[in-house]
Every structure is written in structure tokens, then in C-alpha cells.
């Protein structure tokens, strides 16, 4: 039964615009039938269909109708509101109406793209339009609120991503708080000797940036620090930061490192984290020569003073008047206010023990790529010599690609950088040792600028390439500790067992072990692999679903340094764009408490995921902070007395929409 067409008593005049979206919609839904149907609905003054309603002529059409026909409610039946709700609200506003006198109907994602039966899809389109027409007449004019934005930015993680973003923001005149949990900034890049594909010396290109961070007047650098709590909302975040004790006063230490020589430990005895435990350090140490800040740190686990309280403290003696060493330092916390946040917490390398048949942790001559990076590094544990644990120079080396990547048993994704770093290691090992090098790969992935050329160069140098995933690594009986690397050479269809002195496992990139905790702290989400999730994989790659929180570098997924730096720049630009407008417009679809009805039961208060509800003791009623409310609707649904209402989702409006859907035409 068609509803009878009458003139709306309240003078509501609705315009309905059905979009073809080329053939995206028109191919499956009869748009002409929809238009004709819409024209029959009560309150509808004009119904049209158009090839691309979002195009400029499409928009003009709506504006003209509003002016000429006196329309005062607009319904557009097209794609997802995620894409074009903003566009059409602007159109309505430009024509002089309140932008919320608008309702969008999704007949693409919810209809034409998910159905094949044209007749049924058309009927569904009618139902959806009818629901929108019924609801839009009850829309009320709403206003967007503006809140000011704090221009300071927090950057978490001081790898190349965090460093680059920090310098970009600081150069643009914004104050940056850079929080790094280790004793130095630099991240993984600081561990490498050379970087692919150009073989730039990593330190030569990285350390100038690290020093610039330290000396920049707009950057506050906190190492040995971590974020423990984040409150507030975009533009106005309150962030609590924990500073772990260094036992050295940063401002007093001049980085002379005399204390290290003076330490009662004559020999370095503590396995050195920065060198992947391949070298030793003292209890008082600096992670690497160019560390920033150039300040020593004391490890309380190995320092005798902490263990027994009876050390001669020769370090303190030699530090003398500078008085930089302070065994009594305590953990401190402080709270800062920032408007935007960039997360640049990087990655973790895959634990090779999880592929037990590669023998890592069992056979001493099986190394990870990162370990070999340290062996090659001139400042590393062997001063840049590639030698085995027993001091021998390897004559034959196997490099195993895809360890902990592209494998249903570990990680399904490709880690993107390991083919290239495997090639880099092949080149560097050959250069340093003249060893025969075998790269075992499944597919050689060299898609970046200059990458394929680098592959060509390494092949030309005589590296052997075996196309096959390594199946087993074990000692070659009676071959003086050599390991057999076993794989099918799939291009030759033969199984090869190649004896080598050294195996390098090119382990993949994984999310940081605490990525889930960090995600929760910053109210963002992770993808299934555990990397932080961007808002849109193509169109919003550095945004998150939380406004004002951006991503840069490997915390969002494996990538190389060029991509990391590009992304860090993009994250900085997004943050700057927000800051430079100076204010943030908030969606008005917030919830509010009808005070006369609220019984003060407090049910809603703990449920709000954004802590937007408080209890007004004087009135004994719940109160919602409009600025904090994200319009999720949880409280609305939870209130036993129905006293919470939400703009754009008032009961009346939702019921009208449901009735519209269910009223068979």
C-alpha cells in the first residue's frame, strides 16, 4: 500500500536525490523506480536521480532546488556516509539550511554491492529511502562546537620515525615532547653500519639528526621515560610520563666517560643489550659512542653499590666536582598537556627460536640479521670484523630469508625489508670476509627505488642465490662444526645440502611486545597482526580512529627507512594541519541528560568509554561533558529511565526510521 501524499503540516519539504554512482548503483538497482517511488512519499516535494550526485553539477542541482523549490530537508541515496556525508552536509549549509537537516541513505555498500537480484535490491532501496524520509522530517538544527587546540605535540619513540617527526614539528615552531624508553634515541637504525640500497653509513646520516634533536630549543627530549596515562581529547590531552632513574644527573654529566674507565670492574663483564649480547659492557656505560644524550647510565642489576652498598665508588671519585652520579635517584612522574600525539614506537625482531628447526640458540654459529649488523658495525663488539664466536672468519655463509614471515606457523605477512637487508648483509659479509655467500629465498622482493639495481649488483658480485625455503639446519657430521643448510633448489628440482660456517637468519619484523598495552593507553586499535591500525589503508595511512593520534614508522607495519621517514613527515603534516587551524570542530551528535527524568542511579557513569559522564553531587544527576562525549550511544542504551538522549539519534527519530523500514509499501 502506497502512503498517501499530503502536504506536511509543519511545512516540511523534502528533496530526495538518488545517485547512479556510474554503474556501481545503477547496475544493480533501478534508480528510476526508486526516484518515482520517493516522489510518492509524504513530505517529498522533489525526487531526482543523477549520474554522480557528489559531482559539482550534482551538488549545484541540490542547491538550486533548495532555493527554487523551498526544500528544507534533503535525503541523498548514494554511498556510505563515511565517504560523502560531509560533502552533502556542506551543500545543505551552503544553500542556507542547517547542515543537519540532511540524511544519507547507503544504497551502494548496503545494497547494490551486496546483492545481485535487481528486483529485490530495488525493493530494499525503497525501504531504506522511506526510512530516511520519515526520520529526516524530525531532524533538528544542531551546531558544531569549537574547542581550542594546544599546539604542543607528544611523540612517543625516538627511532628514525620519532626523530624525523620531532624535527619537522619543531622546525615548524611547535613544542615537541619526545619520549624514548631506552637510554638513547636512534632506535634500530643506530645499530646498523650501512643502509640499503645506497649503502650510506647509518651513523653518518642518523647522528646529525640525533644531535639536532638534543639541541633544538623546541624539543624536550626525555629518555628512559614512558607514557603511563593519557586523558583528555583531541586538542587537549593530559599525558602522564614516568621517568626511570638513570642514576646520573643528565644536566651535570658532560659525557667525558672517565667514570667508565674508573669503574671498579676492570673488565667489561655484563652482556651488552645494544650489541645483541655479543659484547660486554660495564655497569656504568653508554650504549654506543654517538648516543644521544651523551650521558652515561648505571645498570642497577650489575652495579656493586646497588648490590652490596659497599663499592669503593671509583666512578664518583673521578667524577669529582661535577657530582653527576646519584645513586639515590628515584622514579618520578609528571603530567604534560599536548594537543596531538604521534606514535613512533617501532618494531621488535622475530624470536628465531620459534622456528626450532633453524637451530637458533642451539648452534652457536646460527645468528640473526640484527646480530650480524652489530658484527659488521665498526663500533660493534668485534670492531666491525665478521668473525664467529670462536674467532674464526667464516668461509661459507648462508643467509636464510623469510624467518618468521610468510609462514602460517608464525606470521603470515611479508616483512618487506628482509629481502633487501639480506642482500645488504650478503654484500657486506663478502666485502669483509671474502666468504662464499648463499642466499636462500622464496621470492626476491625488491620493489623500492634502486632496490632491483642493488639485487643485480649483489648477484654480479658472485653471491649464490638458491630459490627455496630452508627446511632444516643441522651440524654436518664430521665436518668440524660446519652446519648443513638443507633446501630444495626449486629452480633445479634438487634438494641441496650446503655446508657453511655461519648461518644468518633474516628474521621478520613484529609488533613491539607491549603494543597491546600501548594501544589501550592511547585508545587506538591494532590490526590482526598486532601493528597499530591506520584509519584507512590508502587514504588515511597515518591517522588512527582516535582524533589527534597519528602513526609513523614500523609501529604501523614493517617498512624500510625511506618509507618510515616519509610517513613520519606525513604524520607531522597531519598534526600541523590540526594545530594551525587553531580549533577543533566537534560533531554535535553528543548525548545529554534530561535532568527532570534522571534518577541519579549512576548506571551510565562507568560505562562511558571516554569518561565523559560525571555525577553532579549538588543536583544528584548525571552530567555529560559535551567535549569529551564521542557520541557512541552506550549511555543512551544503558539508562534505565531513558533519560539520556543523543542528538541525531533521539528516540523519536530512531523509531520513525524503524517504522519507515518496516512499513511495507
Amino acid at each position, binding site marked *: 500500500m502506497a502512503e498517501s501524499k499530503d502536504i506536511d503540516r509543519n511545512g516540511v519539504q523534502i528533496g530526495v536525490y538518488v545517485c547512479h554512482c556510474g554503474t556501481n548503483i545503477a547496475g544493480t538497482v533501478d534508480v528510476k523506480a526508486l526516484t518515482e517511488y520517493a516522489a510518492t512519499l509524504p513530505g517529498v516535494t522533489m525526487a531526482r536521480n543523477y549520474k554522480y550526485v557528489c559531482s559539482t553539477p550534482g551538488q549545484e542541482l541540490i542547491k538550486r532546488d533548495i532555493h527554487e523549490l523551498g526544500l528544507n530537508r534533503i535525503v541523498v541515496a548514494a554511498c556510505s556516509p563515511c565517504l560523502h556525508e560531509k560533502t552533502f552536509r556542506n551543500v545543505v549549509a551552503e544553500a542556507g539550511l542547517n547542515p543537519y537537516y540532511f540524511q544519507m541513505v547507503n544504497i551502494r555498500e548496503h545494497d547494490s554491492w551486496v546483492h545481485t537480484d535487481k528486483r529485490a535490491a530495488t525493493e530494499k532501496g525503497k525501504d531504506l529511502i522511506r526510512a530516511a524520509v520519515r526520520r529526516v522530517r524530525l531532524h533538528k538544527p544542531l551546531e558544531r562546537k569549537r574547542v581550542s587546540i594546544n599546539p604542543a605535540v607528544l611523540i612517543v619513540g625516538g627511532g628514525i620515525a620519532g626523530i624525523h617527526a620531532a624535527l619537522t614539528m619543531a622546525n615548524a615552531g611547535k613544542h615537541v615532547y619526545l619520549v624514548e624508553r631506552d637510554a638513547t634515541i636512534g632506535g634500530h637504525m643506530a645499530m646498523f653500519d650501512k643502509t640499503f640500497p645506497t649503502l650510506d653509513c647509518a651513523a653518518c646520516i642518523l647522528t646529525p639528526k640525533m644531535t639536532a634533536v638534543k639541541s633544538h630549543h623546541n624539543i624536550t627530549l626525555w629518555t628512559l621515560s614512558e607514557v603511563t596515562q593519557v586523558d583528555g581529547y583531541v586538542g587537549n590531552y593530559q599525558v602522564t610520563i614516568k621517568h626511570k632513574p638513570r642514576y646520573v644527573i643528565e644536566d651535570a654529566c658532560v659525557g667525558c666517560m672517565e667514570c667508565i674507565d674508573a669503574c671498579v670492574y676492570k673488565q667489561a663483564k655484563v652482556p651488552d643489550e645494544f650489541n645483541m649480547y655479543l659484547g660486554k659492557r660495564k655497569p656504568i656505560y653508554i650504549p654506543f659512542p654517538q648516543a644521544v644524550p651523551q650521558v652515561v647510565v648505571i645498570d642497577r642489576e650489575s652495579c656493586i653499590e646497588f648490590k652490596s652498598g659497599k663499592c669503593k665508588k671509583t666512578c664518583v671519585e673521578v667524577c669529582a666536582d661535577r657530582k653527576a652520579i646519584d645513586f639515590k635517584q628515584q622514579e618520578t612522574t609528571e603530567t604534560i598537556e599536548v594537543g596531538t600525539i604521534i606514535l613512533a614506537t617501532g618494531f621488535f625482531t622475530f624470536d628465531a627460536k620459534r622456528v626450532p*628447526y633453524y*637451530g637458533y640458540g642451539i648452534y652457536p654459529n646460527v645468528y640473526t640479521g640484527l646480530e650480524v649488523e652489530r658484527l659488521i658495525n665498526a663500533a660493534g663488539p668485534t670492531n666491525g670484523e665478521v668473525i664467529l664466536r670462536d674467532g674464526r672468519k667464516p668461509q661459507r655463509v648462508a643467509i636464510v630469508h623469510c624467518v618468521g614471515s610468510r609462514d602460517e*606457523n608464525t606470521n603470515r605477512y611479508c616483512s618487506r625489508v628482509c629481502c633487501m637487508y639480506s642482500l645488504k648483509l650478503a654484500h657486506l659479509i663478502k666485502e669483509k670476509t671474502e666468504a662464499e655467500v648463499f642466499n636462500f629465498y622464496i621470492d626476491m622482493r625488491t620493489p623500492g627505488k634502486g632496490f632491483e639495481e642493488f639485487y643485480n649488483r649483489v648477484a654480479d658480485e658472485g653471491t649464490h642465490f638458491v630459490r627455496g*625455503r*630452508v627446511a632444516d639446519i*643441522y651440524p654436518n657430521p664430521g665436518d668440524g662444526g660446519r652446519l648443513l643448510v638443507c*633446501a*630444495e633448489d626449486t629452480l633445479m628440482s634438487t634438494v641441496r645440502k650446503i655446508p657453511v660456517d655461519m648461518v644468518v637468519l633474516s628474521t621478520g619484523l613484529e609488533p613491539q611486545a607491549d603494543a597491546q598495552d600501548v594501544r589501550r593507553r592511547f585508545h587506538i586499535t591494532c590490526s590482526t597482526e598486532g601493528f597499530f591500525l591506520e584509519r584507512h589503508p590508502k587514504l588515511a595511512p597515518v591517522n588512527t580512529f582516535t582524533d589527534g593520534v597519528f602513526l609513523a614508522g614500523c609501529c604501523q607495519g614493517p617498512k624500510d627507512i625511506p618509507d618510515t621517514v616519509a610517513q613520519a613527515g606525513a604524520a607531522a603534516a597531519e598534526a600541523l594541519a590540526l594545530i594551525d587551524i587553531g580549533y577543533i570542530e566537534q560533531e554535535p551528535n553528543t548525548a545529554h541528560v534530561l535532568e527532570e527524568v534522571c534518577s541519579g542511579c549512576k548506571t551510565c557513569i562507568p560505562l562511558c568509554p571516554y569518561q565523559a559522564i560525571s555525577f553532579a553531587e549538588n543536583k544528584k544527576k548525571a552530567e555529560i561533558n559535551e567535549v569529551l562525549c564521542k557520541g557512541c550511544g552506550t549511555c543512551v542504551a544503558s539508562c534505565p529511565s531513558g533519560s539520556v538522549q543523543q542528538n541525531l539519534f533521539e528516540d523519536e527519530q530512531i523509531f520513525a526510521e524503524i517504522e519507515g523500514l518496516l512499513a511495507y509499501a
Partner: protein
Amino acid sequence: MGTASHNIATQSKTLPCEMTLENLTEFPEGRRVLTCIQCGTCAGTCPYGELMQYPPRRIIGMLRAGELEKVFTSDSLLECVACYACTAKCPRGIDLTGVLLPLIKEQVLLHLPVMPAELQKALENKLRYGNPMGESPRKRAAWVKTAGVPVRILSEDPRPAEVLWYVECYTSYHPRGQDNARATARLLHALGIDFAILGNEEKCAGECGRLSWERGLYNTLMEYNMLVFAKYQFKMIVTSCPHAYDAFRYRYPIVGFNYRISPVPPFFAQYLPQLKSILKRNLNYTVTYHDSCCLGRHNNLYEEPRALLRAIPGVKLVEMVHNRVNTICCGGGGGGMWLDTYYKTKGIERLSERRVKEAIATGADVLAVACPYEVSRFEDALKVLGHEKKMIVRDITELLAEAIEV
């Protein structure tokens, strides 16, 4: 040593029996072959990968190219011992051993001009006598008289039992298998477990028939055993044979099997506290444990057998180079048990010999096993290699039983 956990997904699901090569891709498990990246891990890890003309990677390549016929007419897949190594390591999670290879093997056997005699005989024996050796079914429970403890046979005393112990063929008939049977009976008795066996009513569960793909035989055995189970009341089945365990766990559910089921080692591992109080005798052995393919790679039961061995006073456990997920098959699986002569005529190294060399290299004096195929295979291999003085082979149950006898 190498105890890092490896979350390999080798445990097969119960598979529909109507799956064939033609409709393979209609099943999710079969469809996975389309995702093969031709990485060669399967060929590289296969114990016979060097010899096979068509290792799993190439079979998938031929399948996708529509050239399987060539694979059927080569006998290369007879070298597959259904060891699950390829399945365990395949980066695409393709269940080669459980799904694809048996279907191929069936075709290979059908295309053979003559079946290898030994295998032919074993399969016929299973059908006629319910055991591959061709022993009399009436003598299946003969070992009970020598058990030294009472062993209840359900056909004689059909009262409900807590545990139905499914002894299986080699454990019932082979002289060294019977040692295992007697040891198990003593352990069950010592732990005060209410158990019974099917005696002469028991027949082979049929797993190796299936893996070397003899569908008809397998179905006959399955139906028979289900009818026998239905006659009695028991709370669970414990079996001495990992192959029978596989059959019950992954195949029998199609015909309605839903009893609780456990292989012997994890069953006894549940009783570790009680066992420890009776394991009194110091054995003073250095033991290396061989992970059987079914128990280990296919069912991830790596730690239970080791826990039992560690509970024995005076046992020092050492590991072979290839252990746990990386174990090397004894060569008995997938019909390999009855292809030794065939391999020999083709000049192929026996896997039991390869394995025993690794065991000897550990310096251990006992090679501990948990699958009834292995005792005779490894003892024979030790003899052939002239190592029989250096090392003895014992089922875990034999060692446990030895340690409770004071």
C-alpha cells in the same frame, strides 16, 4: 635443548571420506593446495626428498597444471612414509600428509604394474586376519598368560571398565611388542586402574592401510571395530599404538566414534605423582628419546613422553640432533613398514638406519620409543650397522616397568 615451543598446526581435522582428487578444491582443507608458493620446504625436509621425482611441491605444480597423470605413473610417492614433516613445516599450512598425499598414493598404487609383494601381503593379512603379520586372530590375546598380572578380556568378563586398552597388532603379536604389552599391563595394574582389553575380538585400527590408501580395507576395519566397541561399556580408550590413535581421533569420527581416546604416554603422564612414588629402582641409563611422527609432529605430544622418562630415577635424557617437530621418521609410516624389501631392491637407505646413527652419536645407551613399529625397526637397524652392543631399544613403558620392579 631446543625446547622452544613451536605452534605448528599439524593436527588434522576429521576429513570427509568422500574427498577425491577431482573434488579436492571443494573442501577448505583441499583448497589450500591452491595457495602453495612452491617454496620447496616440503621437499627439503622430506626424509626421501632427495630421491623423490615428485616431492609434494612438484605434485602440487603438476596438479595445478593438470598433469597429475605423470605423477601417478611414477612410483616416486611410494617413498612417502607419511611422516608429517612436510605438513609441519609448510608455510602455507597445507595438510599434505593428511589430505593430498594419500589421494595421490592411492592412484600411484592403482597404476603400479605390480604391487610390492610385502605390502600386498600385509594389506591382505589385515583384511583376512585383522593383523598385518598374518597371525591367527585366535592368538591375539595369547600374551596375556605371560603378563604376570591379571588382564581382563571383555568377551570373557563383559562388566563395564574404566579404560578399554586397545593393544594393537605389533604389541599383541611381535615378541618385542609383547614386552611392551606386558609392561603396560603391569603399569596399569600397579596404578590400580580398572582396565580391560578386547582380546581376540580386537582387529587392526587400519591407519596405515588408509595412509597407503586402501580405502575398502580401511572402511571394513572401521565398521568392524565400531561394532565391537558398541558391545561394551567403558569410559575411555587408551591405545599402545599412535597410528591407531590417529585413526580413532581423525578418521573414525566420520562413522560416529566419539569415545575419549588417549595414547599410552600422555595417559600415564597424568599419573606422574603416583608413578613417582613407585618408580624406585635406579636405572642408571643415558636415554635418548625418538619422537614418533604420529605422537609428536601430528599430535604435538612432545613433552609427556619426556616427562615420564625424567621421572625414572637414574635416567639422563639427551637429545638427538633431530628432535620434536624436526624428528626423522623410523621409515615405518604410510605403509613403509612393509616396503623395506622394495626400498632395498631400489637401493634406498632405510630411515631406521639414518635415525639410529643419530641416536648413537648422542652417546646414549638406550633409545627410548613410544610407537610399536619402532622397537623392531631400530633393533634391526642397530644390528645391521653393528651397533647392537652399544645401544638397546626400549619402549617407554618397558623402562617404567623396569623401574617399578625392585
